[in-house]
């Protein structure tokens, strides 16, 4: 209603004027009434007295007129805010405590939410990111998800599926680059020429890949990231057109990506750096014959769905196409493999398994905020009891209950908004810390920032928090009978008994939530401990590791390591030189260090004289090593023999399997002497069995591993690519002494080889637990805060109870109650509260723990040790928190206590 709005506005902006008019109007009425009385023969005093009675409470009338005018939503808010501010200033200790805990609670929530926002919620920074999907080839019949694909299969996606606008294949790797400010080891993407078109990005300068870059092999064009451009080319636009050398071959920089562009995948595995270099890859060597369907060698592919095609439609069409292809080429697709295609939104794919971690963290901070709210609600309730008298007076002066509730809620929301602003500051500071400590294996972390979504979240969180902790005391005050409050000595009135019960419920909830958080922290800590105690299968102490890569130019003429003989010569010479370093016992070479590699490639395993494709789970990972590797790592040989320097190319192929592979595939017989092969590779004779190693990470129950001699593994004719390797050195020397020596020895063999990621094996193992450790530490920190807040809560309730019941306690003492009787009275109350809280908390924790299942290792979600430990700890702390007020009660001097009432 227009008139209504104008009326309210007038009320707001001309408040003084309106108030004055109201005064005038009522005074006029009063004077007229008095005048009438005098006319009727009363004295002027008597007439005035009667007039006052007739009108009633003038302030009440005024208040009702103000309500009738409907001004209060705006004007009263300002008034309430002023009043609330004054109150907060009057109680600096309470205010400081409330704002501090709120700032921590809201700050922690905001910080964790901003991580969740960046990782899970914010769309990928590409054009229409919802149309981007990761495509996977799977063989569910063999239990394999994400198998390699062949060129004809890639062509099927492009030409036969009909649901994609673009399909782009990718291979990820790392290369040596020279020609910039310094030689660099870079993460590289070899992508189809339409890679950038698929994502929908424009270059910062220069161009991205074009049709002409789509050639067999690699096109001589390179696109670089903004970070590389600034680091190595000092942000000079003339970098476009410059020639760089990548693994000995010349490429021309054609374009620079905009800042913030990131390859949509998890962060790199070998160097933990983002991809900074892109090469256009034609997926075929110039001399290749017609590619075979069975030549499956490519790992990555993603696509952009055609506009108007839904995710479900695309998935259905791809499944149908896979069925057609299986029927058309039965020889290439054995039926039991059930080869098929599946898609996932690219965003979900990138986020991967970090989702449960983030959700657990988000749950933990939410619990913290709830506890903070309950605690403040508790303090406010205590204060509200103290303010009964004030409220009764306000009510007598004409304030409606609505008005009193609004006033109290204004106070608490003001508190929470101040806390929220402080919380945003806490989150901002916290994020800087978090960015340094959160392990790099959480994707998209570099995108974490406080954007509008985060700020809105923080604001809503603080408002909601204020409402939650403000509503309870406000409603309580409004519901209780206000009249007794106006009497001076209202202690022990029904209202405060009810308040007491309500506060008990709040404290019990706090304790229960604390139990849940502590149980979660306990489970995560036990997981961490059992992982740290996990036997990795080798002795990681006194091992220094380093990574080296041989260049792999596409042009064989430029390849210094083109033949197996050249590579063997290199490895043997490098081993000889490293072994000559003083303090080095022995150097081993391996394709992937245990617990450091996260790529999950595995190959189908062929066993001679066993029908192929018969067993669904015949697959394994091959790990090329040199003969000294097992000794260096102290991986015990169970039976058979180790590799020797004679196991070279041209000699009979041999392999060593681990115990679990032996148990799994030869449960009844001895595998020694049997022949196996990886994929379609050459047959190898098993010559030895070694103990299991946690090759794929301490928390991964690995799939079978087959060790092969690296001097046999390089076989160019098999298309085998193995040029990245790690050196593991058993040594008494510290890392700092050894590192320059390793670099010197590598460059004395080949000066063009970069050495990177030099680290001790202990450190690598430690790093592989970094993410879990961080999560466990954060949740434990939260659990500590929860414990502290809960004990403050229980202390507060009991201290208040003691204060209220001082006279009663005085009487008891006067009548002969002993110190221990009084102690029992108060501590008993604490014990009851803690007991109920713990029981409720344990029940909730039991129900909630299963949600954490995927994050646990070596501990059951319902681990009794954790639950009992948490309960005992909380009980002891609650006991301590109850003892302090109880002791105060025992020191009551009965005469003083009785006199003050």
């Amino acid at each position, binding site marked *: 209603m227009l008139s209504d709005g104008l009326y309210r506005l007038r009320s707001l902006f001309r408040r003084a004027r309106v108030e004055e008019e109201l005064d005038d109007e009522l005074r006029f009425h009063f004077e007229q009434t008095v005048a009438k009385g005098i006319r009727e023969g009363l004295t002027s005093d008597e007439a005035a007295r009667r007039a006052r009675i007739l009108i009633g409470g003038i302030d009440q009338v005024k208040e009702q007129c103000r309500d009738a*005018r409907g001004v209060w939503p705006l004007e009263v808010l300002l008034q309430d805010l002023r009043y609330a501010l004054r109150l907060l200033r009057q109680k600096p200790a309470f205010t400081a405590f409330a704002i501090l805990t709120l700032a921590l609670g809201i700050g922690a929530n905001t910080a964790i939410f901003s991580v969740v926002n960046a990782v899970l919620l914010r769309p990928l920074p590409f054009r229409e990111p919802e149309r981007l999907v990761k495509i996977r080839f799977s063989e569910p019949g063999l239990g394999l998800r994400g198998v390699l694909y062949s060129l004809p299969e890639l062509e099927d996606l492009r030409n036969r599926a009909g649901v994609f606008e673009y399909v782009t294949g990718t291979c990820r790797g790392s290369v040596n680059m020279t020609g910039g400010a310094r030689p660099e080891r870079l993460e590289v993407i070899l992508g189809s020429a339409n890679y950038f078109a698929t994502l929908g990005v424009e270059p910062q300068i220069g161009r991205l890949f074009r049709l002409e870059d789509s050639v067999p092999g690699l096109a001589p064009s390179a696109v670089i990231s903004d970070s590389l451009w600034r680091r190595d080319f000092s942000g000079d636009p003339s970098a476009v057109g410059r020639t760089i050398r990548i693994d000995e071959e010349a490429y021309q920089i054609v374009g620079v990506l905009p800042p913030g562009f990131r390859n949509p995948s998890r962060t790199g595995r070998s160097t933990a750096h983002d991809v900074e270099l892109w090469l256009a890859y034609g997926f075929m060597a110039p001399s290749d014959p017609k590619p075979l369907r069975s030549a499956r060698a490519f790992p990555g592919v993603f696509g952009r769905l055609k506009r108007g095609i839904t995710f479900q439609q695309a998935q259905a069409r791809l499944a149908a196409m896979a069925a057609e292809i299986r029927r058309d080429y039965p020889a290439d697709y054995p039926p039991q493999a059930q080869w098929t295609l599946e898609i996932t939104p690219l965003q979900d794919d990138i986020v991967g398994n970090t989702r449960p971690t983030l959700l657990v963290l988000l749950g933990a901070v939410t619990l913290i905020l709830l506890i903070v709210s309950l605690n403040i609600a508790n303090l406010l309730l205590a204060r509200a009891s103290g303010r009964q008298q004030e409220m009764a007076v306000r009510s007598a002066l004409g304030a409606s209950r609505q008005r009193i509730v609004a006033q109290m809620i204004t106070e608490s929301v003001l508190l929470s908004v101040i806390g929220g602003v402080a919380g945003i500051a806490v989150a901002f500071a916290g994020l800087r810390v978090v960015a340094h400590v959160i392990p790099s294996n959480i994707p998209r972390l570099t995108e974490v920032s406080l954007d509008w979504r985060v700020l809105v979240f923080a604001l809503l969180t603080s408002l909601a928090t204020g409402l939650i902790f403000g509503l309870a005391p406000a409603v309580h005050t409004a519901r209780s009978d206000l009249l007794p409050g106006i009497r001076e000595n209202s202690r022990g009135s029904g209202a405060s008994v009810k308040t007491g019960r309500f506060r008990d419920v709040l404290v019990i909830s706090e304790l229960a939530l604390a139990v849940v958080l502590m149980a979660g922290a306990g489970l995560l800590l036990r997981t961490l401990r059992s992982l740290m105690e996990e036997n990795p299968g080798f002795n990681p102490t006194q091992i220094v590791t380093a990574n080296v890569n041989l260049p792999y130019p596409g042009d064989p003429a430029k390849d210094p390591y083109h033949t197996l003989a050249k590579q063997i010569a290199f490895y043997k010479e490098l081993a000889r030189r490293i072994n000559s370093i003083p303090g080095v016992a022995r150097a081993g070479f391996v394709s992937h260090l245990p617990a450091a590699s996260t790529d999950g490639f595995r190959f189908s395993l062929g066993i001679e004289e066993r029908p192929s494709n018969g067993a669904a789970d015949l697959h394994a990972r091959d790990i090329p090593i040199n003969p000294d590797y097992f000794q260096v790592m102290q991986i015990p040989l169970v039976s058979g023999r180790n590799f020797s320097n004679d196991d070279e190319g041209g000699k009979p192929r041999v392999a060593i399997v681990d115990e679990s592979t032996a148990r799994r595939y030869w449960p009844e017989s001895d595998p020694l002497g049997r022949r196996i092969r990886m994929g379609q590779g050459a047959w190898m004779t098993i010559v030895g069995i070694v103990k299991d190693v946690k090759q794929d990470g301490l928390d991964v129950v690995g799939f079978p591993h087959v060790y092969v001699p690296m001097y046999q593994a390089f076989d160019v004719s098999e298309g085998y690519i193995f040029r990245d390797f790690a050196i593991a050195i058993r040594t008494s020397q510290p890392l700092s002494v050894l590192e320059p020596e390793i670099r010197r020895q590598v460059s004395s063999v080949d000066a063009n080889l970069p050495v990177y990621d030099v680290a001790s094996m202990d450190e690598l193992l430690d790093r592989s637990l970094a993410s879990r450790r961080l999560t466990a530490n954060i949740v434990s920190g939260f659990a500590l805060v929860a414990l502290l807040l809960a004990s403050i809560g229980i202390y507060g309730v009991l201290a208040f109870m003691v204060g209220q019941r001082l006279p009663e306690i005085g009487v008891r003492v006067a009548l002969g109650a002993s110190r221990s009787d009084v102690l029992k009275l108060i501590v008993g109350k604490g014990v009851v509260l803690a007991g109920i809280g713990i029981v409720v908390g344990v029940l909730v924790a039991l129900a909630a723990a299963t949600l954490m299942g995927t994050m646990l290792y070596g501990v059951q979600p319902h681990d009794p040790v954790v639950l009992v430990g948490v309960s005992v700890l909380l009980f002891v702390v609650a006991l301590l928190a109850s003892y302090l007020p109880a002791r105060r009660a025992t020191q009551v001097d009965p005469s003083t206590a009785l006199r003050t009432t």
Partner: protein
Amino acid sequence: MAATIELPQGTLDLLILQTLALAPQHGWAISERVQQISSDALRIQQGSLYPALHRLERRGWIKARWGVSENNRRAKYYELTKAGRRQLELEKDAWLKLTAAMAQVLGMA
């Protein structure tokens, strides 16, 4: 003098509107007038008169302006608006129907 009766719920607005239908009045005069016309049977609680006036003004049924009273004092005069006149007819109608029905039920018609 007839005994004073409590004003039934909702009748105060009707009384105010009816009184103002005759001529613009200030608050005091309205209460005097109601008392007078009803032969002292109806007495408006002073405490509820002004909140009611402010509420009616907010609804747009009456409007206020400052004028000069009979004894030369500044006073706030209220008058009916067009909407107020319509509202008065509605409420009057409803009231008459109610009382007629009540009389019928109570066996007095």
